[in-house]
């Protein structure tokens, strides 16, 4: 038996691996959890795919912009499911009343966050990869045809989803499961403002600056430019990355402040279903 004295900033890959293993065991033990990962993205893609199929046959513009709706749906799912995957893994600790065990263990908050980020990626890939293949089979839309641009879109969307997930986890930690609804609904606040299905110019002029403050707006604009004009705008991705750094720093700072507040209010011992 060995025990080591460590500082607050010591990083342990083994502790991160322990948390990932914990979530992997959980996923493996529950087939409804696995099915749920694929179910909603698939339903969404099929619904919007048929809608696109219909408008392509009836509108000249959309005939030129083939794939924008399905592309938007799939990219939106990366953003939404990325955040949800992060938040659900965190909520599992609250539902099972395990958060006190974790907070009392040597696990550092940033190690916990890294494990949640990796698991959100794993959950996302389990859910989205089969759906992208179905999109190709059903509607001939090849998401992977976006090439390197897809990598830039993916990185930016994941960073936003994690930043929001981290902040929401802090809210739940501080306020208990009464704040759980934020985890399910907060991303929908982004939906109209990030212009998932329409260009930013559709918004009223006074609302457009607010839209440009959100990193996903740049991704959805970039996706439309790529599919409609066949042009990739790297500057959009760089701007999104800059904003994402601010979002991520803000989310992490918020989480740490809410954790401090939870310690002050004694919430860490009183969380549960």
């Amino acid at each position, binding site marked *: *038996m*060995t*025990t*080591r*004295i*460590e*500082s*607050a900033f*010591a990083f*342990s890959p*083994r*502790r991160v*691996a*322990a*948390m990932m*293993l*914990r979530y992997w*065991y*959980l996923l493996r*033990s*529950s087939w409804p959890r696995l099915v749920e990962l694929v179910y909603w993205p698939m339903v969404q893609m099929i619904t919007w795919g048929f809608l696109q199929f219909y408008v392509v046959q009836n509108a000249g513009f959309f005939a030129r912009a083939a794939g924008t709706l399905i592309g938007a749906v799939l990219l939106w799912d990366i953003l939404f499911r990325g955040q949800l995957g992060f938040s659900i893994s965190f909520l*599992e600790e609250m539902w*099972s*009343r*395990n*958060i*006190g*065990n*974790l*907070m*009392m*263990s*040597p*696990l*550092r908050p940033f190690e916990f966050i890294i494990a949640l980020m990796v698991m959100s990626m794993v959950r996302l890939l389990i859910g989205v990869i089969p759906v992208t293949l179905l999109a190709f089979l059903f509607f001939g839309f090849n998401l992977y045809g976006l090439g390197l641009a897809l990598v830039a879109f993916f990185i930016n969307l994941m960073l936003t989803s994690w930043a929001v997930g981290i902040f929401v986890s802090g809210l739940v930690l501080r306020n208990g499961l009464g704040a759980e609804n934020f985890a399910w609904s907060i991303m929908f606040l982004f939906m109209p403002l990030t212009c998932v299905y329409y260009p930013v110019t559709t918004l009223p002029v006074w609302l457009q600056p607010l839209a440009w403050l959100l990193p996903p707006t740049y991704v959805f604009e970039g996706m439309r430019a790529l599919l409609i004009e066949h042009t990739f705008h790297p500057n959009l991705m760089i701007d999104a990355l800059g904003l994402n750094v601010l979002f991520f720093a803000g989310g992490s700072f918020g989480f740490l402040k809410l954790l*401090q507040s939870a*310690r*002050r*209010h*004694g919430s*860490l*011992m*009183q969380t549960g279903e």
Partner: protein
Amino acid sequence: MPASPAIDVERLVKIYKNVRAVDAVSFSIARGSITGLLGGNGAGKTTTIAMIMGLTTPTSGRVTVLGAEMPRQRYRVLQRMNFESPYVEMPMRLTVRQNLTVFGMLYGVADLADRIAELVGALDLTDLLDRPTGKLSAGQKTRVSLAKSLINAPDLLLLDEPTASLDPDTADWVRGHLDRYRRDRHATVLLASHNMAEVERLCERVIIMKRGRIEDDDTPARLLARYGRRTLEEVFLDVARGGGEAREAAQ
């Protein structure tokens, strides 16, 4: 030079809104000792333990654990501590083996498979290892929680109602195991309970709390003598009903 105490609590206060949950509590706990923290519901036992563990920040006062100030320096000592409490549970869907593996990794336990085998043998968990933790009976879950709390062979073990909701036989078995562990490892144990028989059997020293304050603090034998009672339960009732006046009357 005498060894520093395992736990040193100095004028500890915790106020939640307008409620003083813990009110200027001070005590030291010697290394290798087993101490009972007694008190009724709302006496401040759990809040005191939460502050010792670094889970709750004190409003004022100071807590030092194994030489580290809590919660500021908690990462220096968390690997050498562990706890069990009815306020937390282990993930229900994970099997006993999976839970012990995850917590063993979190605590940086070397030779984890051997340590799990050792605990499983000592706590009679062999037949339960591959069952989901949520499917176990209350007594079995308690044994699993105890295994988790011992996974890192802690120098300091904090136990909050470790035998609550257990049948007398299992509760007795758990107490025996805790006592053996403490003696074998020279570990320090702080036990919060309102089970007087448990405290009387296990503890060398008893701290009685009431309404966030320490009402009395002594060995069980001296408490019995001072209050002129035969059991700690009677002492506890005296304190609960009369507080300091009961002790003065007894003296």
